[in-house]
């Protein structure tokens, strides 16, 4: 039914041959009357819809964050800053803050370099190398974010594969382990962002320098790098937030070192100290929000690229071999580790006990609980992606085209949902939705809502980006032809925003399949998710199950992505033919 309707709508845009339109033209007065009421209905539905959306955003993003803020000021003696004083008095509390900041800065600086190296090799490198680095740079994205901790433990533990091979004493628990695991986990983010900038960079300046006789090293140092520094900075800020909010890696491989996100979790669930957990959350929120504000409002538009010129990649100047070798020298160790990590996961999945009993087995794959968790994960991720995309795109449309009041604030709130670490949103949801009017704890719905709203910004930003490129005259034309607002939205806007919808859906789906930090607070009996299940078996040392389930999760995510891609291609084709 729905499909037939939309088909008709789209016809109406090109040729007003629709039966209803014809009928409308024949009876002008009737048409006018309809138009009048339609305007009213539109206005009413528009504003009520905006209010509805605003309410959703307020209650599912802002309210939980505020609840956490308030909680941090609750002391046994009423409201006050007692918890904060306590935080700075005890070394095991404030050390977590210092550690987290050091960790995030280290990961960020390493990744700014590695991201650039990978991006440069992928954009400018010879064909084979370029493809290879593009592939490895993106590869970690499909894995649960803590999977590299699992494989690093198997690889680099005191009795790990490397320790046995080199007969050396290696201790991966703690700083080295967490930093390495984070570098691999967040490589795709840094890589993609820097690659984008590098691709769209105008290469005229480089060509000019080259013609004047500068060698490639000098061009890289004096021209390319300064041009893309803002791009690298943007990537670095994002990595910083992700690193500080990271939960899975520190909890698995952090050893005794305290970090903010994990300790907030342990304080909440382990030691039953919700007030101090809330203080930790506040310290997690602050850097995220500062950085996102800087990112969004000060850095946007400062990327020195020339979008109107031809794509920079088309020049394909051969990279000189000393430069290539230098870059490969930096990148190769990381590539080897990434590939090893995935190899270990596959190896561990089919092995009875890694390094103890290396016999082949399939038993790890047949864990009833794990398989059930896998099923819930798909349901969860699809729905979360649907919410984030549908609401996000609609919100972006209202923000850009309808200029609803407080649009900027709504956009900012959606960004808060994205910037605030998952641990905070998990705790916030528990605080807000545990009692009426919205007693949602213990349901799958609360998990879906949490993940959907946390990723709302993805839909919103993708939508805004696209809408700013679409000329408003198309919509005006449709309106002039007599299409209502809703009709215009469905038959003009949506098809044109195809790319944004797909981006938002795919991204949210992938993130939701592997998320841990927020949902770990919200899972309930029978609603276990695969990612949380993997984390808990890994924590108990069932590495075989952890590897097998991770592998299945990776394959499943890839299969779903493949399916989405086919759907995307199919629908794109349809648009182009129409």
């Amino acid at each position, binding site marked *: 039914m729905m499909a037939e309707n939309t088909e008709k709508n789209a016809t109406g845009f090109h040729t007003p041959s629709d039966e209803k339109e014809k009928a409308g033209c024949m009876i002008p007065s009737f048409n006018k009357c309809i138009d009048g009421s339609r305007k009213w209905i539109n206005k009413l539905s528009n504003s009520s819809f905006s209010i509805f959306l605003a309410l959703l955003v307020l209650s599912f993003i802002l309210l939980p964050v505020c609840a956490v803020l308030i909680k941090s000021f609750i002391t046994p003696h009423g409201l006050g800053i007692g918890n904060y004083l306590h935080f700075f008095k005890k070394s095991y509390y404030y050390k977590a803050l210092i550690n987290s900041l050091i960790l995030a800065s280290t990961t960020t600086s390493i990744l700014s370099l590695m991201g650039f190296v990978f991006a440069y090799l992928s954009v400018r490198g010879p064909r084979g190398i370029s493809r290879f680095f593009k592939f490895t740079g993106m590869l970690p994205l499909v894995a649960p974010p803590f999977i590299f901790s699992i494989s690093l433990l198997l690889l680099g533990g005191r009795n790990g594969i490397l320790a046995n091979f080199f007969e050396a004493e290696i201790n991966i628990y703690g700083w080295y382990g967490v930093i390495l695991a984070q570098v691999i986990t967040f490589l795709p983010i840094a890589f993609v962002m820097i690659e984008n900038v590098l691709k769209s960079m105008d290469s005229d300046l480089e060509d000019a320098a080259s013609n004047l006789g500068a060698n490639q090293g000098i061009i890289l140092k004096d021209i390319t790098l300064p041009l893309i520094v803002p791009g690298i900075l943007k990537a670095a800020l994002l990595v910083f937030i992700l690193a500080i909010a990271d939960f899975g890696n520190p909890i698995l491989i952090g050893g005794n070192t305290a970090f903010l996100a994990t300790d907030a979790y342990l304080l909440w*669930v382990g030691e039953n100290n919700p007030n101090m957990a809330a203080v930790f959350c506040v310290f997690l929120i602050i850097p995220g929000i500062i950085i996102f504000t800087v990112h969004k409002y000060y850095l946007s538009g400062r990327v020195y690229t020339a979008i109107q010129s031809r794509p920079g990649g088309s020049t394909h100047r051969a990279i000189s071999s000393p430069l290539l070798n230098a870059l490969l020298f930096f990148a190769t160790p990381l590539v080897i580790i990434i590939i090893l990590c995935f190899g270990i996961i596959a190896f561990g999945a089919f092995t009875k006990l890694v390094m103890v009993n290396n016999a082949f087995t399939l038993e790890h794959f047949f864990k009833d609980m794990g398989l059930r968790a896998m099923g819930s994960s798909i349901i969860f991720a699809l729905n979360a992606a649907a919410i984030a995309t549908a609401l996000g795109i609609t919100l972006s449309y209202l923000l850009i085209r309808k200029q609803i009041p407080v649009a900027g604030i709504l956009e900012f709130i959606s960004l808060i949902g994205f910037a605030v670490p998952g641990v905070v949103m998990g705790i916030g949801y528990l605080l807000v939705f545990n009692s009426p009017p919205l007693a949602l704890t213990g349901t*799958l719905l609360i998990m879906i809502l949490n993940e959907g709203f946390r990723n709302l910004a993805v839909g919103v930003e993708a939508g805004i980006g696209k809408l700013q490129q679409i000329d408003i005259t198309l919509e005006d034309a449709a309106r002039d032809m007599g299409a209502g607002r809703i009709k215009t939205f469905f038959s003009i806007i949506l098809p044109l925003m195809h790319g944004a919808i797909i981006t938002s859906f795919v991204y949210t789906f992938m993130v939701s399949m592997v998320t841990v930090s927020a949902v770990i607070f919200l899972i309930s*009996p029978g609603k276990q998710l695969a990612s949380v299940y993997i984390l808990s078996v890994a924590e108990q*040392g069932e590495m075989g199950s952890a590897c097998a389930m991770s592998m299945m999760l990776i394959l499943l995510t890839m299969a779903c992505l493949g399916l989405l891609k086919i759907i995307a291609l199919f629908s794109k084709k349809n*648009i182009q033919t129409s």
Partner: protein
Amino acid sequence: MNNQPGFPKVLYSFVVLIQIFTISFCTLFAIAKENQQVRLYSHNDIREMEQLIPIAETATGLKIEFIRLSSSQILARIRAEAPNFGADLVWGILNSDAIEARNSGFLHKNSSKEWNNIPDNFKDPEGFWCGWSYWYNTILVNTSLLTKKNLPCPTSWADLLDTRYKGEIVASNPGTSGTAFLAVSSLLQAMGEDKGWRYLKQLDKNIAQYTKSGSAPAHLVAMGEYSVGITWDRAAQIKRDAGFPVKEVVPMEGTGFDLDSIMVLRNCKNLDNALQLSNWIVSEKGQKACAKIRSRVVNKLAATSAQKEPKLFSYNAQAAATSKEKILEQWKDNFR
């Protein structure tokens, strides 16, 4: 032009598909377990539950949904959730935490005749909680690693202070692990506060890391990551039975034990089912099933007398429960 767009068509049919998929999935499950569902929190290891749940499901005809949380996590969770608990039954929680839950008024009073076969010291006099098994702290050593590093096998708590074990001992964090809280609180009770803390401080110098889970040290020792682990009996025995080169050592001085408890949560959604399951667990049949995965069960009719009873500290769970916060605070001040 004639072959009209399918984009919204595809997108919306896709979204509709997701919804249909979800709804059917949920209803399918809902129908299957409409009246026979029972939701569990448990600190039992996942592997144990993977063995026990199918047996319990066939015996009771219930559909059991469970998630594993550490003992203190369970307590924190039911505190946060009260009065709308996310589970019906807790099968496996530290006795001290069960006492805490009882004192907070979270528990349903049970009076089943199945309880008659449980000795009085294994159940709450008023019927709010009861034990289903008990377990104790042990030391697990990796014998091949000890030989390789030329270290003697420890036999007592005192042996662990030997400086040669520096960086070789792995224990867990009492804030997050019931096993570790039992070890810390029972040692404090057995040695007395002052001596106990002095012992723990000296021990800390040898500890390589405190894990989050109490079973994790057993795993790390079995995998050959560290030579000595402080853990609990079944975690150690599972590794031994799996064929790892490990040995379980019950410390000479004695060791702390804890009654693993069951409690039904007050006003839970599936009260009858929760009662049915909890009664089955302590029944003779249930206890025989439990005896397959635990070394000690509580029902007189099913108790395994063949095994030699280890030397146990006399442990006062009530006292441990009252001083828990203080102990944890002091532990963190010293060791974090």
